[in-house]
């Protein structure tokens, strides 16, 4: 059976699990710890990939024993990382906005105010290149019972406590509250993803997109 290496004395970290011989998964308490630990590990292990997620950090290219030894030295906390801050203009006219407000017992204006006043942080990416899971919202929004077959690129959605912006057209089950025209994914750019783990994001309400407003 799997030899799970427990971790003690490191706040927020519980165990290291082997993933084959050359990769391992660190179990942590939450996405904030996963993000902070992944940013710390990225510059300390010569791994192929370091992938934070909701409650884990995968390190591909490092054995469980080696990773266990390294993680024991982490003294960091889950404080919000000091990543770059980007502003994302949003027209709040999503097809699910009124429904979300109703679920939360708020008015549409209150939802928009709360969403734009919160500084979000990209906890991790996944689902599609450049798709970030942004933490910051205090809400717990259910996914759509039946996902849409087609979501326009730039759609801003909510699911659980996450906010996400669809970089490209795709199917999707998040509740859509608005839309933006920022480029989230450009593989020819030096930094291909606007949202990287650790990026801080502020949504700014605008009446219309484009036109350099």
């Amino acid at each position, binding site marked *: 059976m*799997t030899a799970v290496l427990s971790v003690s004395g490191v706040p927020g970290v519980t165990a290291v699990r082997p993933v*084959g*011989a*050359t*990769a391992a998964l660190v179990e942590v308490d939450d996405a904030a710890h996963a993000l902070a630990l992944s940013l710390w590990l990225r510059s300390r292990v010569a791994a192929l990939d370091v992938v934070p*997620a909701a409650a884990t950090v995968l390190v591909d290219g490092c054995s469980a024993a080696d990773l266990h030894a390294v993680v024991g030295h982490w003294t960091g906390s889950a404080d919000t990382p000091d990543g770059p801050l980007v502003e994302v203009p949003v027209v709040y006219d999503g097809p699910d906005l009124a429904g979300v407000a109703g679920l939360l017992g708020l008015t549409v204006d209150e939802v928009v105010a709360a969403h734009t006043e919160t500084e979000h942080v990209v906890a991790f990416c996944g689902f599609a290149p450049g798709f970030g899971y942004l933490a910051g919202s205090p809400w717990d929004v259910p996914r759509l019972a039946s996902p849409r077959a087609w979501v326009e690129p730039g759609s801003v959605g909510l699911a659980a406590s996450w906010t996400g912006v669809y970089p490209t057209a795709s199917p999707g089950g998040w509740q859509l509250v608005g839309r933006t025209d920022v480029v989230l994914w450009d593989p020819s750019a030096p930094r291909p993803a606007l949202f990287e783990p650790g990026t801080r994001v502020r949504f700014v309400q605008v009446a219309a997109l484009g036109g350099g407003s």
Partner: protein
Amino acid sequence: MTPAVRVLEVLAATGLVTVQDAGRPGFAHLGVPRAGWLDEPAALLANRLVGNEASAAVLEVLGTVAVRPAGPTWVAVTGACSPVSVAGRAVAFGEPVHVPAGAVLRVDLPMTGVRSYLAVAGGIAVEPVLGSRATDTLAWVGPARVEGGARLPIGAAAGEPQALDTPRAPMVSALRLLPGPRADWFDGDPLDALVAGPWTVDADSNRVGLRLDGPALRRHPAYVGRELASEGMVLGAVQVPPSGKPVVFLADHPVTGGYPVAAVVHPDDLWMCAQVGPGERLRFRRG
């Protein structure tokens, strides 16, 4: 050489023909699959045979392809054992083959195996995306799939063609399994159930994953109905959805997944996943 010589004209392609190299690991945290050739030993052999660097891009052929290099060049076809012809005449599989100017090179459906690899001296020189020329079929990062009418740039030849060096026994055997991170989600050691099998390759297998049909793995009673928060996935991860039917994650796998990983295929055995087709049997052993 004039620039016009270094073009490979694609006359026809069936099935799925893609440009592949070693892929683009290192971007998983941005949601980008690694992509890259599925049968790495075969692709590396093809590159060696035509004198290419190991990093040169080749064509991965699941189906058939007909190409016409604009100038004389060396090529090699490896992987699934396929009929290869130049100007309508049969030529060697697994050896460097010279293609004169204007002649058509054809790779037909394999007798055994699934995917063949066509290396051209100088390599397929399409523009790299995030440091790689590989096509990812999940998010379609990298060059488009190769279709009839495409004109693929070819790099300058880096070396001389080589004789066959260390041929690999083209036999698929039992794949070695290493422990996965979520063995505790299963009823008993999931390696026992996976080794017992037997498994049959599903028709909906692709570059994302090899889907297996067989005796469903059972979850430990404590984990029945539970959901796993999505977590990072590695190449070769054996992920088991609630159906109990395992999926071996291949090069275009999603970077995260929400089903428990019961085991991981030994990296040196992953190439076999590229060469087993729908309906074929597949076995595992402890590695």
